[in-house]
């Protein structure tokens, strides 16, 4: 029984970083219907930026993180403004290819600038400092990630539901032309969306970096975050978060009780199943356009 509870707890713990990446992907998808495959590398470059501030400029962790989040927002805005907006007659496939291109460029830049050797980021909480309650353990860093994911989900949910900007983002996604007619500057909305998404991704990157940093560190969380976003319906923020935790738990239970060798592929089997059985995801409403 202890093992079972531990697997659930470990699943929730690992699900938090998937949730953050899933949230970041959903934010962009909600407004532009483009899955952003550069999400992981945007978080990666922000994390290495923080590392540079800490080690080369010797800033305090809090100051470095603050500047990193500002950098992340600017980076997201810049990528949308300088690259995606320039795409001529964009369609979804073209935009996806552009995001893959951005991913490669950012990955190459990080490898060139910061080197590929593994590092760890200095952080007030050690990556392996843990809380143990009746033989069940969870690391303090994972608790922090869990809190960050839930807080961000709530803030973003409220933001999209109750603020003018949030509603403008929703309107842009649902009907861009109509949104423009009612005076919404859709280009600016898209830019801000990329900025916010980049910030959420950067939080994930910063919380992974104290454990290990290398240019490929965001691949697994990004893929799992994407899987969670698909499972949750791509447009639902709570859906992506709940799906991310479910994914983490399923992976852990599968690894514990079925096969540790195939634990990694469970996420992708789930994507296939969800897309076959419920293409709109587990938590999103399926809109059908009337003609």
């Amino acid at each position: 029984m202890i093992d079972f509870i531990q697997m659930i707890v470990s699943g929730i713990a690992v699900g938090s970083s998937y949730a953050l990446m899933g949230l970041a992907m959903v934010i962009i998808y909600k407004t532009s219907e483009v899955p952003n495959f550069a999400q992981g590398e945007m978080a990666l470059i922000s994390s290495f930026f923080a590392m540079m501030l800490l080690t080369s400029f010797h800033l305090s962790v809090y100051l470095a993180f603050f500047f990193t989040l500002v950098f992340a927002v600017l980076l997201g805005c810049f990528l949308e403004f300088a690259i995606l907006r320039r795409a001529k007659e964009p369609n979804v496939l073209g935009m996806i290819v552009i995001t893959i291109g951005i991913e490669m460029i950012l990955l190459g830049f990080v490898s060139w600038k910061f080197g590929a050797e593994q590092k760890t980021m200095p952080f007030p909480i050690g990556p392996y400092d843990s809380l143990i309650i009746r033989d069940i353990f969870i690391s303090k860093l994972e608790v922090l990630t869990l809190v960050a994911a839930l807080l961000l989900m709530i803030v973003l949910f409220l933001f999209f539901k109750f603020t003018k900007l949030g509603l403008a983002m929703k309107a842009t996604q649902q009907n861009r032309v109509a949104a423009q007619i009612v005076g919404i500057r859709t280009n600016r909305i898209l830019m801000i969306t990329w900025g916010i998404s980049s910030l959420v991704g950067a939080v994930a990157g910063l919380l992974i970096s104290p454990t290990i940093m290398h240019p490929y560190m965001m691949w697994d969380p990004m893929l799992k975050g994407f899987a969670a976003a698909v499972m949750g319906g791509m447009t639902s923020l709570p859906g992506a978060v709940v799906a991310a935790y479910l994914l983490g738990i399923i992976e852990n239970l599968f690894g514990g009780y079925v096969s540790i060798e195939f634990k990694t592929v469970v996420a992708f089997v789930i994507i296939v199943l969800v897309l076959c059985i419920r293409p709109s995801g587990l938590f999103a409403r399926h809109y059908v356009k009337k003609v």
Partner: protein
Amino acid sequence: MKKKLLLTLFVFFAILLSFTPDLFAEEGVTDTEIHLGQWGPQSGPAAAWGNVARGTGDYFKWINDNGGIHGRKIVYHMFDDGYNPAKTKAGVKELQEGTGIFAWACGVGTSPGLSVRDYLAKRNVPWVGPAAGSMHWVNPPQKNLFAVYPLYVGEAKALVKYAIETMGKKRVAIAYLNDEYGKNGLRGALAELKAHGLKAVAQVSMEAKDSDLKPHVMKLRKAKPDMVLMWTTVPHSARIVGISKAMKFAPQFMSTSTTSDFPFMMHITKGLWEGVITATLGELPESGYPLLNKYKKEVFDTYAAKGERWGVFYYAGIIFTEPMIEGLKRCGRDLTRENFITAMESISGFKGIGPEVSYKPYNKNDMYSRQGASQTFLLQCLAGGKAKRLTDWMDIK
């Protein structure tokens, strides 16, 4: 008509003569140059071992600046394969068929190496010192392939033997990477356990891209081992030790020589590597070994890039290529692949900064005709990344 024919013949022979030196020279060798190649992960999950290829490069620069080899300078072609066998194969083919490489040095990784082993064998291109202790290089032995790295199977046997006979451990669990590298370690450990009438209490495999290792550590903990042998990548090993610490699971950890760069391991585990026992393949940085000191001063201090670290991964790039340089020297000016292979076969009891290296004339039934080194020693990580030598060089055949 006659004039035209003579002119055509003249042009034909002129063109033929202009190509003559290349037509009759060995591939990758000119009057002034020897082209040697290497792949190495400068990115990806095995990037921690990327300094092997950089160490070799600096060693070659040092040789060139000291006169080269019989009047020829080494031209070193190194590329980043990211520990991805598909990239290794593409890069090797491109360099071999495009530039023309005389011989290949080192090359990190069992799987990347396996992707080009048969290709190089088919072309009889010499390959010396694959930077992995796999049985695949020498079982069966190949005429063109000279292994230096002590076999993982032997390393694993040495570690398990030490755990059982010296430390009195009885319950051994094994965490291994689900590829040929990991399985080589697993085979050695299981064989040694069997020799002592024991079985592994757990065998837990992981994929190179796995980043959540809690389920793996839980499986290990459940088996209640008193020793866990890790045959994984550097980040995996760091995570296993870290998660175990978080779970208050504290067996004796042992690991392969690929994690024996203690200052680096201490850095990425934030000090948790202390106490881990590993095998190793070279003299220790602080040992005061004269040749190692010479390399530190004349190779590392002179040629290493800014930010490079003097450690076992870096000078492993020298260990694996010292016998190759010895072979090239023994060839004299008459450098052909056949002469080089014969020269390599004549190496016996060669001692650089790694284990003793000996080869024999090719014998398809004797893997030690191509497995040059079969020695390792064990060390334990101390505070500050210092190493305590636990054994002397041991023969691990």
